[in-house]
């Protein structure tokens, strides 16, 4: 008798969009109409001159048009999206696994070390992208640096840098659970710390960790975007001294946004809009997915307020009803 009061739209749109993104990440490059090196030669086609920068939807050849130097925007995106998703997923995977492991175990300690708390607060004070700016600044412009090494280097530094914030939030959640009575009961039955963490605390946090994982992916993309705005592209930046243009080697989406920043003041703003809107779609699909999962998992929420607050939840949370056996 458990009617769904209102369909969980954000969950289904989230899943759909994420599936499309993953599909693009896998088959993107093979679907790209042009390679990254081909450029549009100024050519003459039935009455019109086609010359870079070609606005989108003017020719079937270059569906989304080309940038200033003639590279096909659609291909660049299809190649770059794999990097964006892979990098953000890899960073999140590393930092979430390490951060959660540490957080879960430290949460079960009787007294959390003051030094750890002080470090966490201090670390959360300094904006992450600033730390990365300093780590990546000097090496991104090295001409002959191999993009894969730079990508790998970014993944390592980015995950290490953001581990403290994961540890702090997981530690707080784990601490809260490990003071409840059923943990005391398990201790009395002789359960050791590992059993407490993996049989009792982790199952409670599974859902919120999954939601956190997805939100952290958005954080990494945001980080890459912030760096890109300061001309630091993941995988290396080519700086053409003569035309003062910054180019991303890996064509990673936020890199494209960073590179296209110059076009704001000219009439070819579409070179900026296309990657920017795509980036917006990527981050919104993950946010929708996370929000949808949160509505789904919210089995019981706290007391209803005594005063009209205007924040009553729209989607009725569906209580996880186990399969009725009788």
């Amino acid at each position, binding site marked *: 008798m458990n009617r769904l009061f209102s369909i969980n739209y954000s969950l289904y749109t989230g899943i759909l969009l994420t599936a499309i993104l993953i599909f693009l990440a896998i088959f993107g490059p093979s679907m790209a109409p042009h390679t990254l090196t081909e450029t549009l030669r100024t050519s003459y086609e039935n009455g019109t001159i086609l010359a870079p920068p070609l606005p989108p939807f003017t020719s079937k050849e270059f569906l989304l048009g080309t940038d200033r130097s003639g590279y096909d925007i659609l291909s660049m995106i299809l190649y770059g999206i794999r990097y964006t998703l892979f990098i953000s997923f890899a960073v999140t995977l590393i930092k979430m696994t390490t951060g959660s492991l540490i957080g879960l175990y430290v949460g079960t300690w009787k007294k959390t070390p003051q030094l750890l708390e002080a470090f966490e607060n201090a670390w959360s004070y300094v904006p992450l992208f600033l730390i990365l700016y300093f*780590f990546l*600044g000097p*090496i991104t412009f090295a001409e002959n640096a191999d993009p894969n090494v730079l990508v790998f280097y970014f993944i390592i530094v980015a995950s290490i840098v953001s581990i403290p914030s994961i540890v702090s939030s997981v530690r707080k959640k784990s601490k809260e659970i490990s003071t409840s009575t059923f943990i005391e009961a398990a201790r009395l039955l002789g359960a050791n710390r590992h059993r407490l963490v993996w049989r009792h605390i982790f199952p409670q946090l599974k859902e919120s960790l999954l939601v956190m994982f997805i939100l952290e992916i958005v954080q990494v993309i945001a980080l890459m975007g912030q760096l890109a*705005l300061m001309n630091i592209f993941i995988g290396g930046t080519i700086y053409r001294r003569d035309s003062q243009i910054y180019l991303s080697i890996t064509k990673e989406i936020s890199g494209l946004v960073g590179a296209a920043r110059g076009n704001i003041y000219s009439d070819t703003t579409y070179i900026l809009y296309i990657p920017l809107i795509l980036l917006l779609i990527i981050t919104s699909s993950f946010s929708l997915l996370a929000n949808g999962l949160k509505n789904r998992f919210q089995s019981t929420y706290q007391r209803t307020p005594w*005063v009209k607050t205007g924040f009553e939840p729209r989607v009725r949370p569906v209580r996880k009803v186990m399969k009725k056996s009788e």
Partner: protein
Amino acid sequence: MRIIQQAIFIFLLIILLAAIPSILIVNPYELNIYLDFSQLGHLYGQFMKELASGSLGTYQLGDQVRFISADIKSNFLISLFTLLIGVLSAVVIGLLFGIFLSRFIVTRFFNMLLNILSTIPDFILIVFSLVLAIKIYEVSGVRVISLRPDGGALNIWYPMVLTAIAPTLYMFKLLAVQYYQTSGEDYIRTAVSKGMRVNYINFQHVYKNIEPFIIADLTKVVSLAIGNLFIIEYLLNVPGITKFIFQSNQFQPITIGLFSMLLISLIVYFSIRLVLYIFKRGFIYE
């Protein structure tokens, strides 16, 4: 005790960060990256010497070498002013739409908008508002921002708005959740059972129980604002404190820049605490 430990950690972090550009070496041949710590001693020694001699040292601007102390004052004030107004508007808008006005129909739509905006990463919002400013200029001829460093007032107000976006969304979400939880407490039921009006309850009962949460998360809000301030000053080329940090890779200006940013954030933090205290003293009688 914990504050001192925190201060030491931040201090070490800044010193190390500022040193990285000059000690991070890319080995062009084997293409690996390593940190050459040997230089560290020399750098810090030199830095101390400069401070000891009373001047803040020199920095390279383009081709000429200038004294930091000469330019820092105006930049410091610009950044401080931008950050202060940004975080202040975040707290004010957060309180207004998160608590005091949140129950009205019209604010409900605004709240929905804020909720949607908060899912979009800050830097996309910044770029979009930048594009918006240019579109306004192209359409109406009204110059909303000026990209020349000496643009004066025109150069300040729009960056202030941009810096306020991220903290406002964060503060709004935080206060909305806290308000929903606090209004479920028993003492709110007691207040309603005493016949108090909702508006009175919001001010006298709800606010004082939410204030500790605002103060607790104030550092996070300030650090969010700083993060965005860096980007905005870089994009809109605002003559703020970040000039020293991005201008050159020299250790001296970067350290001075970072420390003054730390000083700015402390000033902003305590002035917001002061504003909250005055608001409490004024509106909520003891």
